[in-house]
């Protein structure tokens, strides 16, 4: 309970249709950022449970119905987000809303049939954003497989910079050293910008000492990430063949991407007709019809000999068990998709390799969009990545020419504590800024901080 806080920051009127996993996760994140949220779902039970936990208003009904949208005061809304189960319903909700008001609309569209035409749909239907959690997850997994030593890889500066999340093993030369002592290995365009230790997230400065089992996040130009990992003393290897368990939409997107890089893909899928579909869509992949939780099936798929195992079934528990099983019998890089189960502490105790949470990816993209819209003037957030279960954020802003931080040497800016200007993307180049560097108009500025909720670049100032 907080004492009366001034409503300095403008809250937006946001309508969210569909209270599934992504919808709920959006409500959780956006309601904390002082927005006025109306949720619509067909199931009154879901509405009730959401109203009980968050300060939002709920309407039970079909979100695509005009009268329901009127009841939700869509004409006064700034943003409408449709994340129901069905792509068609999401698009219809957005079309109806677009006719009734001039709010910005965001739809979740995930079927491959439409996703290839996402740009066309977006333009023709006047959508502000189309999100595809499955495709986003596939992209993320493919980045991880590209840098298999990493626990996670996030992309910034339109793909020119990467933030690598990696666990420091004892064999590395990093533990016990202060960051300032590591200048010889740290020289050049690389920066350790966040360290996870135990339950805490640190934004380190030069005097910070790394310990064994810390998880560091460092940022560097994308093409150099492998060489830096090598320089830090990590073993790096290339993934040549991948076993994907589960043949859902994410698997399809992932396989498509991996095959285009020339990686061998095997997919285990239990449903025969889905196998037929996958086989016609992905002629180069090996499709295995069988139960991914059956040891013999996995053995037949030669799980011991692959470079990476990706658990992508629709059931979180199966994915976790699969990864634990694979961990025991092979040295493969492991990627686990977890969507529903939260228990962050319990999951961090299990060694599940890289964990991908599709709903976080989707939520973060939407939150980035909403924050840009709610800033006092034009602000644009390119990317938002949450660090260590919401304890911090890495945000990428586009610097505006009239922003108060532009053209001032960074050492003269009085920025907040626990905040790092980690990286600047300028004309396709990536630079790790020194104190003498200035932010120029049009720069992509990547901020790493434990202050969640930054809306515009000048929020980094005290």
């Amino acid at each position: 309970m907080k004492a009366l806080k001034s409503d300095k920051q403008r809250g937006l009127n946001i309508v969210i249709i569909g209270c599934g996993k992504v919808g709920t996760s959006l409500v959780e994140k956006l309601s904390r950022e002082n927005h006025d949220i109306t949720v619509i779902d067909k199931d009154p039970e879901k509405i009730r449970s959401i109203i009980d936990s968050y300060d939002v208003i709920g309407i039970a009904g079909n979100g695509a119905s005009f009268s329901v949208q009127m009841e939700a005061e869509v004409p006064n809304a700034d943003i409408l987000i449709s994340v129901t189960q069905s792509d068609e319903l999401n698009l219809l909700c957005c079309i109806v809303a677009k006719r009734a008001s001039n709010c910005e609309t965001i739809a979740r569209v995930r079927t491959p049939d439409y996703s290839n035409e996402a740009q066309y749909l977006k333009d023709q239907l006047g959508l502000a954003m189309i999100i595809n959690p499955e495709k986003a997850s596939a992209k993320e997994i493919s980045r991880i497989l590209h840098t298999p030593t990493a626990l996670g890889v996030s992309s910034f500066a339109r793909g020119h910079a990467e933030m690598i999340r990696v666990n420091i093993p004892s064999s590395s030369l990093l533990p016990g050293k202060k960051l300032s002592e590591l200048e010889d290995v740290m020289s050049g365009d690389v920066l350790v910008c966040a360290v996870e230790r135990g339950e805490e997230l640190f934004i380190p400065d030069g005097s910070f000492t790394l310990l064994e089992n810390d998880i560091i996040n460092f940022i560097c130009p994308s093409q150099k990430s492998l060489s830096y990992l090598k320089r830090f003393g990590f073993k790096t290897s290339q993934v040549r063949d991948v076993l994907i368990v589960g043949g859902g939409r994410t698997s399809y997107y992932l396989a498509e991407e991996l095959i285009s890089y020339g990686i061998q893909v095997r997919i285990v899928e239990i449903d025969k007709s889905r196998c037929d579909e996958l086989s016609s869509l992905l002629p180069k992949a090996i499709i295995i019809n069988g139960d991914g939780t059956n040891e013999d099936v996995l053995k037949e798929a030669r799980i011991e000999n692959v470079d990476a195992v990706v658990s992508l079934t629709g059931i979180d528990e199966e994915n976790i068990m699969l990864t634990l099983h694979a961990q025991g019998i092979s040295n493969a890089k492991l990627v686990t998709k977890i969507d529903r189960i939260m228990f962050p502490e319990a999951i961090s105790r299990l060694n599940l390799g890289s964990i991908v949470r599709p709903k976080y990816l989707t939520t973060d993209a939407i939150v980035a969009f909403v924050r840009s819209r709610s800033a006092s003037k034009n602000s644009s957030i390119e990317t938002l990545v949450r660090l260590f279960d919401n304890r911090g954020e890495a945000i990428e802003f586009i610097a505006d020419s009239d922003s108060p931080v532009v053209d001032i040497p960074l050492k003269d800016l009085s920025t907040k504590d626990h905040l790092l200007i980690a990286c600047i993307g300028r004309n396709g180049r990536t630079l790790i800024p020194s104190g003498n560097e200035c932010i120029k108009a049009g720069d992509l500025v990547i901020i790493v901080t434990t202050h969640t909720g930054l809306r515009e670049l000048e929020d980094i100032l005290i």
Partner: protein
Amino acid sequence: MNFPIIRYILGWVLIVEGLLMLIPLIVGFIYSESSGLWFLYVSLLSLVLGAIMSRKKPASRDFFLREGCVTTALSWIVMSVIGCLPFCLSGEIPSFADAMFEIISGFTTTGASVLSDVESLSHSMLFWRSFSHWIGGMGVLVFLLAVIQMAGGSGMNLMRAESPGPTVGKLRPKLRQTARILYLIYLSMTVMEIILLLAGGMSLFDSLTTSFGTAGTGGFGVKNDSMMSYSPYIQWVVAIFMALFGVNFSFYYLLLMHRWKQALKMEEVRGYFVIILAAIAIIIINIGPSSAPFGELLRHSAFQVSSIITTTGFATADFNLWPETSRFTLVLLMFIGSCAGSTGGGIKVSRVIMMVKTALRELQSYVFPKSIKLIKMDGKPVEREVLHGTYVFFIAYMLIYVVSVFIVSFDGFDSVSNLTAVAATFNNIGPGLELAGPTGNFGAFSDLSKYVMMFDMLAGRLELFPMLLLFYPKCWSGMVRYRKRVK
């Protein structure tokens, strides 16, 4: 149960009450009454206690329905204990039980009084009595929600416990905005009434206290004869405003938002006005148009109907002397009560409508045993839980009513007095019939009966379950364990 957070909220309630007590203090200064000073002392006591209790923020923010209910019930009890002190200490209502009865009757907007001579009280005390109606009408916790921010949805559990009605809906996405809008509507309607009463030549003090009594649907008058001696204009203004304060406040919100269609479609508000008009017609016919000029008859019956159905309890005529059918019509109105989401009490029109619809559905199921019919309100199906809650409410309501009447009957008064006295307090109305009629008072009842009726008033205002929960042992079962864990 999370006790620190309950302590914290109670602390805030005390601070708010301490601040509100400064207003009767000012009244005391204006009329230069020495008894007004008691408000200063009690206010300081309340502020200091409140500051101590709310100083340390609770570590855990766990706040579930049971915390919401217990906090609400305890808040009202604590408020009443502090609120009755000025009456007690100043000696104007010397007995603690009487003072408690009076202030609970004030906060719960009942308006039942133990005093036989109201006019002998000082102005500051009279003001506090009426002001307590205004405070209790919309609720202190709703006021708190308007000013302090609760984490997540926890505020909803407070609102649910304090606001009357089978379902509690928000008007705006944020609870704080909802609470603010409710208070804004409440305040502006009160100011409107004050202005209209002043225009009718009423004194400022009388129009303030009368408006507070109307707005909270309370019914404490500052005259011994309630509203009988005022001009017809004033009586009409009060009658109309009473009826308006008995309407669901969402109705006004929809009007403000220009959502006319939706507003006019509200079944409960329609039902409410139909009942009012029908009751007026019945009473006029029953009393007989020949007995008095039609204008006067209409005014008296409209005033009494509006006063009773909204559970206010002002009177312009001694309806105790009316013919039996008219008297019973009023008793029926006592139980029906006003709309959900208003400041009034009773069972609530929406519950009555739902129960009638259920009975009709039952009839249909005898003719077509396999038929399925959803109960709808405002064109939308009512959730099973809400219906279930309504039936359970009614059963619990009847049980409490019967037990209360049984205990009160030990005082040896006649049944009509007992039945209507309990009905009048339980439904937060004020006057009943016979002994407790508009010209009588509750002073004659024993202290035990008074305490029973105090419980009834609080239970009626908070819609039973928050009060009942205080007496349910399992609700407190976590207490010992919680203490241990904290240590």
